[in-house]
């Protein structure tokens, strides 16, 4: 396409956007709705992922020790545990410390412990893992190895429900793409139908352009460009709506969905995902237009 024809295409796009404004708004609105639903799932998945990462920092293994283990044995055991590549740090909790921690955790109900011997709780090690080793099978393997260490009687870790939460994240991710796929297909056809309407509205103009020797590219370019503009506008509108939703949730709901006593920190889509929404919108608009044009103009005799 020559430089002078770019100006021609731009003018045609401008005039079409002006003349068929509501048709364009309707198409972009439909696309924006699909992108909004997809983006909402993206945001949900991102927040769950963030929550899981935060939870991963709190994953610890409790290794309970035999009562009456000498200080030197405890020290040498702690040394051995620290040599495990998965271990970030290990803290020894004596019977006395365990008693104090438990009492503090009970707070006002701590009087329940009155009358019990102070050495009722076993000594233990709290073991934190390095981020790279927080996967289920790795934690399980480490727990099994710890169990074999002399002086350790039992090992506990909260991996099971972390794994379940990971499954939830995976399910959300799949739902996002499946639902997104269906929505995008629907949007694709709606965008295509709108382009067909736009083509019909300009049928005479296209026919005349064909008769005076306009190339197929020149005839199609304005429609594809319009589709792209609609798609990007739809992406931008969906991001704006998601931001409003995010702000609303942050204000109204954030404090009530806190878990484990800590208020959850909601996350908005990162730049990569915002760009993804815009690119999907752009592609949807362009592909919808091209699809409609191919089916329509090719079968059109002039």
């Amino acid at each position, binding site marked *: 396409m020559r430089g002078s*024809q770019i100006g*021609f295409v731009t003018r045609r796009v401008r005039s079409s956007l002006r003349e068929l404004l509501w048709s364009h708004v309707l198409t972009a609105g439909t696309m924006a709705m699909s992108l909004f639903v997809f983006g909402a799932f993206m945001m949900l998945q991102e927040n769950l992922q963030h929550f899981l990462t935060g939870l991963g920092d709190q994953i610890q293994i409790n290794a309970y020790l035999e009562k009456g283990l000498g200080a030197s044995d405890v020290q040498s055991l702690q040394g051995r545990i620290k040599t495990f590549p998965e271990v970030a740090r290990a803290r020894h909790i004596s019977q006395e410390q365990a008693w104090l921690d438990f009492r503090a955790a009970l707070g006002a109900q701590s009087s329940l412990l009155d009358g019990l011997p102070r050495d009722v709780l076993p000594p233990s090690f709290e073991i934190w893992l390095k981020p790279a080793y927080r996967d289920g099978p790795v934690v399980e393997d480490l727990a099994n190895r710890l169990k074999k260490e002399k002086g350790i009687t039992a090992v506990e870790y909260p991996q099971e429900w972390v794994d379940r939460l990971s499954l939830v994240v995976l399910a959300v991710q799949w739902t996002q793409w499946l639902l997104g796929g269906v929505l995008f297909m629907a949007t694709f056809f709606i965008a295509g139908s709108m382009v067909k309407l736009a083509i019909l509205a300009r049928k005479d103009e296209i026919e005349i352009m*064909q008769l*005076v*020797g306009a190339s197929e590219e020149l005839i199609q370019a304005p429609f594809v460009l319009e589709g792209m503009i609609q798609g990007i506008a739809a992406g931008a509108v969906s991001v704006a709506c998601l931001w409003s939703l995010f702000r609303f949730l942050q204000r109204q709901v954030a404090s009530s969905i806190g878990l484990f006593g800590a208020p959850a920190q909601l996350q908005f889509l990162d730049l990569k995902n915002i760009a993804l929404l815009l690119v999907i919108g752009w592609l949807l608009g362009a592909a919808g237009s091209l699809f409609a044009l191919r089916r329509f103009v090719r079968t059109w005799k002039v």
Partner: protein
Amino acid sequence: MIQLYHVTKTYPPKSQALTDVNLEIGKGEFVFLAGPSGAGKTTLLKLLFREEELTEGRILLDGKNITRLNGRGVARLRRELGLVFQEFKLLPRLSALENVALAAEVVGIPRRESHTKAYQLLRELGLRDRYDAKPLALSGGEQQRVAIARALVNDPLIVLADEPTGNLDADAADETMKLFFKIREKGTTILIASHDLELIKRYGSRVIALRQGRVADDLHRVKQEGNAR
């Protein structure tokens, strides 16, 4: 300039619009394609500007075989032709000037140059004061002159006109024919399909008569442009 060899056009399932048509039209010739409705005049023109594909035979325009062309080839071919229709085919939302300039712009001529060229043509065709008017504000004759200006804006080798005076009164038809003769003076080949025998008698220098899809007559007559002027 225009050569047709054994051209046959059949519309499905078995409607034969043209049968074994052989023709040669030279550069700068002014030719009427005559015949009643359904004789095959419009089909022949459509084959020339490739709105239709022929079933058998071969067509050469300016020595180039246009029988099998892809989309790009058809677009290129049409840039060398000027097309004029009975129903004018002007865009109502564009002014006369913009309608003419559109044809130049789509082939890549810059906007300013297209508009200058369009204005010059409209002036030559007697529409100097009407260039800014929308087609619906123009008379039939004026609309056809705008359509002719559009056909000429890319300096075509051949002008094909399908019943160009069909929607015009006698005076406007006369004006339009005079314009075609004026265009022919520049060496452009003119091929006009018409069923108006009076008009053909008055202006026809060469008349190819079609009947039921076949060439029934090919009359070369003494030039009568003098009458036209």
